[in-house]
């Protein structure tokens, strides 16, 4: 009856109820069974000392706030990347780069959460760049954005987002900005947002309203989410030019598309999950009647399946 000493996991399995009927019967007949039974019974009545979860959480938040005030912004990239980026941006003649500015860059498929000196929060979507100056933050809240980000701005003096195509100015609110080559889109989630761009384009957005500037023309529409879907793993589009949808796929998955055989000006309404490339391709291109083939070097060739494209061209 001393079997439990030969099998070094016997007692553990007994406690977990994993013994066979025979093993259990045999064990019950052993001398020590009652002792083990009693030890196990008593032990299960034990309770660890009380833990005040809410108080502990409040202490934690307080500590985090204190740390945040003393926090120095961390560099997330090795120094040589700053040198390369600096050369590129100066060459474009768009920005003035000072040595005291802070830069964040996300990679393909990456998202990053950033807290600004005044506790405003920015979530960067894939392949995007955010830049601001910590030193001048107290005087002017201004960030430069290339790519896509969702902003939650603390109330205060004006807060500006500068992009190559347009500017967004807010007083304290939540909004999503997309700024890619020649494409600019702003969605207001909370508060009021002033959008300026192109030549003389000026719009004030209220929650649920969005505006995009394509080829210097303004398009407005309404949407109904409180937070952008890309934060939850899905990227959605509303009558968005296919060109931008394809760019979003490229940024998310790090692939490139050969678009020479399709009409990228078509509009797309729908969405794709940002973790699954195969689903994404299906969801975007099947409704558009476009076939896709993957070449070896991560390039995807798109071909318009029907003759609609040819006909459209011929009818122009």
């Amino acid at each position: 009856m001393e079997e439990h000493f030969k099998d070094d996991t016997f007692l553990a399995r007994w406690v977990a109820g994993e013994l066979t009927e025979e093993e259990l019967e045999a064990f019950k007949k052993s001398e020590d069974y009652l002792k083990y039974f009693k030890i196990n019974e008593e032990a299960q009545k034990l309770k660890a000392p009380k833990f005040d979860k809410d108080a502990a959480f409040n202490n934690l938040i307080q500590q985090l706030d204190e740390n945040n005030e003393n926090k120095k912004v961390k560099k997330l990239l090795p120094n040589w990347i700053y040198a390369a980026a600096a050369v590129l941006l100066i060459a474009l003649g768009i920005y003035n780069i000072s040595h005291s500015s802070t830069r964040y860059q996300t990679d393909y498929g990456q998202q990053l959460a950033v807290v600004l000196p005044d506790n405003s929060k920015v979530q960067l979507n894939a392949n995007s760049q955010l830049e601001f100056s910590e030193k001048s933050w107290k005087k002017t809240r201004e960030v430069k954005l290339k790519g896509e980000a969702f902003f939650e701005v603390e109330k205060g003096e004006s807060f500006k987002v500068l992009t190559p195509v347009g500017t967004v100015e807010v007083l304290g609110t939540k909004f999503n900005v997309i700024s890619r080559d020649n494409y600019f889109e702003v969605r207001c989630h909370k508060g009021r947002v002033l959008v300026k761009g192109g030549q003389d384009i000026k719009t004030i957005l209220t929650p649920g309203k969005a505006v995009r500037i394509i080829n210097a023309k303004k398009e407005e529409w309404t949407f109904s989410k409180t937070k952008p879907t890309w934060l939850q793993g899905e990227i959605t589009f509303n009558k968005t030019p296919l060109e931008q949808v394809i760019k979003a796929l490229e940024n998310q998955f790090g692939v490139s598309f050969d678009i020479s055989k399709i009409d990228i000006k078509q509009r797309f309404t729908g969405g794709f999950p940002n973790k699954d490339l195969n689903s994404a391709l299906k969801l975007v291109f099947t409704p558009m009647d476009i076939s896709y083939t993957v070449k070896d070097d991560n390039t995807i060739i798109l071909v318009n399946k029907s003759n609609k494209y040819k006909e459209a061209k011929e009818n122009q």
Partner: protein
Amino acid sequence: MISRIRSVCEKKNYEFLFKTHSESLRNFIYYKCGDLQQAEDIVQDAFIKLWNNCAKIIFEKARSYLYTIARNAFLNDVAHKKVVLKYQASTAKNITHETPEYILEEQEFALKLNKVISDLPEKQRVVFLMSRIDKMKYSEIAEITGISVKAVEKRMSQALITLRNKIGNI
């Protein structure tokens, strides 16, 4: 087929992680050292590190991360004091029909058991209490202590044998 990416940096997710794991994490360290203050400090530090690294941690891996940080923090604390564990008073009221002598025996047994558990080697003690008090499965204990399920079962069995030997005659 939509997959959700939950960011640890989103306050509601971070809070959820705290509400879910803080108590058992605190217990885990408490069982190791018997010092409530030390346990609470280590838990807070672990969650602070979680926040500071939130962009790099996958939500589903947060528990593993927290316990690893806590274990390492504990290893760094050199002072190993004698462990005396205290438990909340048992509120079992189902023995009112028993004799006073029986009740006294029960209480003595409980006291003895408490002492003997505190005297268990740390590895056995932690596994035993995570199983009996926090009701964790062996697979969960394996994940948070960083050892195999078999190793957990061995430690659990050893704990029971040690307890039975030390508790003497009942």
